[in-house]
């Protein structure tokens, strides 16, 4: 069963606020809580508004990347990688090209622009899937790639750093690349392991 992030976040939010309020009541800090709410709400608005400048610039650049077909160059380079990762997907099948487009968009940090491409890939993978209710191994690999998402330019966090007054907002680009490569390597490794174990269990 896929558990929705929507349910989890409700509990998480409740735990934050409820535990805070209980501790405040016990330690006699209830008097300052209204001010805490007002101050932080105000900060929330100013942080969001601070992102307008960079988001506008970056979304403009993203649109140029999208329209120019620059992703296709990346797609060409990624083809051998995808062939290795998705042995069950025929190279000429439309699923393969949508998988490649999604991977490329993720690498460029296109975020929300990558989602429609990813959904397209899922639709094509479902055509290849014999059991429509159960995820195919190729789908699991695709999801492993997407949840760990190799990203070269983490745009939203760069925007946030700039808005918070960082002297060097892009300083985290190399460290984020190292971290994202680690998470993706682990995702691919475990995906292979579980796929192998699963296949062996079903074989018996």
């Amino acid at each position, binding site marked *: 069963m896929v*558990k929705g992030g929507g349910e989890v976040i409700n509990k998480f939010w409740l735990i934050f606020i409820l535990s805070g309020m209980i501790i405040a009541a016990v330690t006699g800090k209830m008097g300052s809580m209204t001010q805490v709410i007002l101050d932080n709400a105000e900060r929330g608005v100013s942080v969001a508004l601070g992102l307008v400048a960079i988001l506008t610039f970056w979304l403009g650049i993203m649109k*140029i990347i999208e329209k120019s077909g620059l992703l296709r160059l990346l797609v060409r380079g990624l083809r051998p990688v995808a062939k290795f990762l998705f042995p069950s997907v025929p190279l000429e099948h439309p699923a393969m090209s949508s998988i490649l487009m999604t991977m490329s968009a993720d690498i460029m940090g296109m975020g929300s622009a990558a989602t429609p491409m990813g959904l397209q890939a899922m639709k094509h993978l479902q055509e290849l899937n014999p059991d429509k209710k159960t995820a195919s191994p190729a789908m699991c690999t695709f999801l492993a790639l997407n949840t760990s998402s190799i990203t070269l330019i983490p745009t939203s966090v760069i925007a946030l750093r700039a808005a918070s007054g960082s002297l060097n907002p892009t300083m985290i680009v190399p460290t984020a690349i190292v971290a994202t490569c680690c998470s993706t390597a682990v995702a691919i490794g475990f995906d292979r392991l579980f796929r192998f174990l699963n296949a062996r269990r079903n074989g018996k």
Partner: protein
Amino acid sequence: MISVFATISAWAIPTLVTLVMVYASWKRIPIFDTFIEGGKEGFSIAISLIPYMVAMLVAIGIFRESGAFDLFVSLIDPVTSLVGIPNEVLPLAIMRPISGNGALALSAEIMQRYGPDSLLGLISSTMQGSTDTTFYVLTVYFGSVGIRRAKYSLTVGLLSDIAGFLAAVLVCKWVFG
């Protein structure tokens, strides 16, 4: 090592922007009009982030100012100090797989409190960029085609999140620490 990292980070964006402009012009794309078309969405996206930011900053503000955060830290400190994860980034690590915008708001809070260029600010930024929102991706992607049994996908997603966080902490401590 730091100078290599500094050069990569300084060159990454300007180089990308230049390459995109040159390539698109060569492909005869009207780059200015295209930029304007894409940039229009910037304001509405920032505005749509406001409720996420307010919700999370208020919640974490209450959690912190009440002293609940200190209590939480004193409970888990023996475990985290063993692994070397700063306690301040733990709420972010828990939030990252659940809500992308929620995690962004927690990063914002850490940067406001400790500064974006502090070690904590850098670790939280790196964490933010290291993975995607596992629960969201699984729900939306599998949901869109009606898959009910996701098999091992959630486990793989969460294991890779943990790997990404540990890598973020270690790399940042090594490069910036």
